[in-house]
């Protein structure tokens, strides 16, 4: 936690942690203190979706369901001044921490967290880039930098399946992420948590338009279901464009590893529903889980088999060149590492590379990201030193 500033307005801390010990506070009597950052971001603990395989894990990394909810009687976040955001935050915090939504929960006040910590949460898909940056306050309030605007995230630990963003675009963004193709489990799990939250929080809801959200593209169920897919073979054969077109025709969005506006680095794609009004959650679930996603999976597997049977030498060559570059590079950027890891992952699931687990490769997808790299190596570094450090870390992890 280099460069951590003192908490400007430390609240009385029931567990007696000191203000330097990190912005995350954990609500668990057994924990006996505030984790000093070791809970998140270290190489030691990793999210469940990275360490478990799950169904169709040769193609699917994770499934995610998020619900957008707002409190009745409050301005939406972008319009609210700082004091109103604070009130919303307080109301949500009190209820979320007391509602018993999971065994152990960690609360992070993002307006008091160092940038590196916030980036770490973005890389772990626990908060959005937008939430890391903050949103400028609505008119009428004191003007302060967007990063200082009151906002937070609650995370279930150590599995990191649940994350509840407070004061993002909507007052609440409740997200559930499980390993593999598991949309149904995610939906059941997140809906149960939503039930616990609505028992104490008065949601803005209209019988006609459903859950009212800041943006009308989310109104209705407020639900977005997405699946993170690894599609290297479809990329090699060029058929990925067909998948994208078909998805768009079915009102689905295809995005990159880090969501809206991000590239599909590492051949990782997220497919998600766009329609939230007039279609119940169960229908979206059935459509994605039982029909569309299995088709994409079959398509990718078919492309992989074609590469194996018709272009084996070229495939082996590409996979081993990637492994060679990763195990011998002395300077490497994150995007290049992701691209090479993608081929190595393909090699592992097809049995071309023995003695390496898919989980180890999945984990590297995360650890090569700038904030994680700096956390693992224990210091903040400039780009050149990050590239050196990244190359060394990959070498060590792939050759041990």
């Amino acid at each position, binding site marked *: 936690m280099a460069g951590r500033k003192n908490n400007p307005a430390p609240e009385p801390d029931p567990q007696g942690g000191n203000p330097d010990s990190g912005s995350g506070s954990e609500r668990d009597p057994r924990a006996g203190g505030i984790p000093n950052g070791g809970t998140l971001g270290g190489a030691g603990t990793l999210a469940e979706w990275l360490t478990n395989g799950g169904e169709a894990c040769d193609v699917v990394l994770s499934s995610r369901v998020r619900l957008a909810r707002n409190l009745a009687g409050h301005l939406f976040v972008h319009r609210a001044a700082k004091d109103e955001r604070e009130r919303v935050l307080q109301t949500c915090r009190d209820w979320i921490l007391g509602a018993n939504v999971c065994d152990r929960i960690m609360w992070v006040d993002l307006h008091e967290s160092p940038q590196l910590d916030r980036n770490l949460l973005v890389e772990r898909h626990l908060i959005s880039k937008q939430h890391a940056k903050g949103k400028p306050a609505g008119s*009428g309030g004191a003007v302060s930098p967007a990063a200082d605007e009151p906002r937070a995230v609650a995370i279930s630990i150590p599995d990191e399946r649940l994350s509840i963003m407070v004061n993002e675009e909507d007052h609440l963004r409740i997200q559930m992420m499980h390993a593999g193709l598991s949309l149904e489990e995610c939906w059941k799990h997140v809906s149960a948590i939503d*039930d616990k939250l609505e028992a104490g929080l*008065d949601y803005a*809801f209209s019988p006609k338009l459903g859950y009212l959200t800041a943006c*009308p593209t989310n109104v*209705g169920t407020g639900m977005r279901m997405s699946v993170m897919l690894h599609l290297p073979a479809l990329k090699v054969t060029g058929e990925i464009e067909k998948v994208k077109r078909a998805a768009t025709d079915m009102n689905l969005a295809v995005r990159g590893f880090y969501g809206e506006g991000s590239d599909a680095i590492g051949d990782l794609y997220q497919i998600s529903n*766009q*329609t939230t009004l007039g279609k119940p959650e169960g229908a979206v679930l059935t459509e994605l889980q039982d029909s569309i996603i299995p088709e994409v999976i079959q398509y990718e597997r078919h492309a992989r088999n074609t590469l194996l049977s018709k272009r084996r030498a070229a495939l082996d060559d590409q996979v081993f060149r990637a492994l060679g570059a990763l195990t011998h590079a002395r300077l490497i950027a994150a995007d290049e590492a992701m691209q090479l890891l993608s081929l190595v992952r393909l090699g592992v699931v097809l049995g071309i590379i023995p003695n390496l687990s898919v989980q180890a490769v999945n984990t590297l997808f995360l650890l090569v990201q700038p904030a994680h790299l700096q956390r693992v190596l224990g210091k903040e570094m400039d780009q050149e030193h990050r590239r050196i450090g990244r190359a060394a870390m990959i070498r060590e992890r792939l050759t041990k």
Partner: protein
Amino acid sequence: MKCESCDNEATVHDTLLREGAWVEVHFCEACAAKQGIAQPGASLNDLLTNFVLPQIAGEAAKRPKPAKARTPVCAECGFTFEQFRQAGLFGCPSCYTAFESLLLPLLERAHEGAMQHVGKVPKRITEAASGKESVNGARALAERRERLEREKLLRRQLDDAVKSEQYELAAKFRDQLQRLLDSSRAADPSRNA
């Protein structure tokens, strides 16, 4: 001191804004009640309905009406449809009602032609609809909403008073707000800071 309206002893003293000027008034309890002036211990709701609201309404009536707005405005938060167009986001949940007619074509396009929610509904809505919800729960929810509404109104009035540099009035609103917040905390521990 005698009451301004009758010969009883004046026990309620207040400062009121009358036709743009501050005047001191002195009434007995009965006449004060008739005049709609709050006494210590009177409920904030009475205060609002008898005193603040007519006054605000009166002041609003005095203000020159703005030229007829070309773009619809949300009565709840003052957000305009034009602002929505620029931001792509609404100002508050009530904007959906305020802009409903303009919004429906947009929703139709964004959601494959649908204009009616199907899917999950909060339990309190389904229970209220089927009459299963306990009377106490319904009352608590209604009270909570009412408090929220009052809180919102007071905050807006406080803002307006500060903006128009009416600091005495602002101080009153501030105190009323404080009392309301204190009583909310007492009534509803989940809102405790």
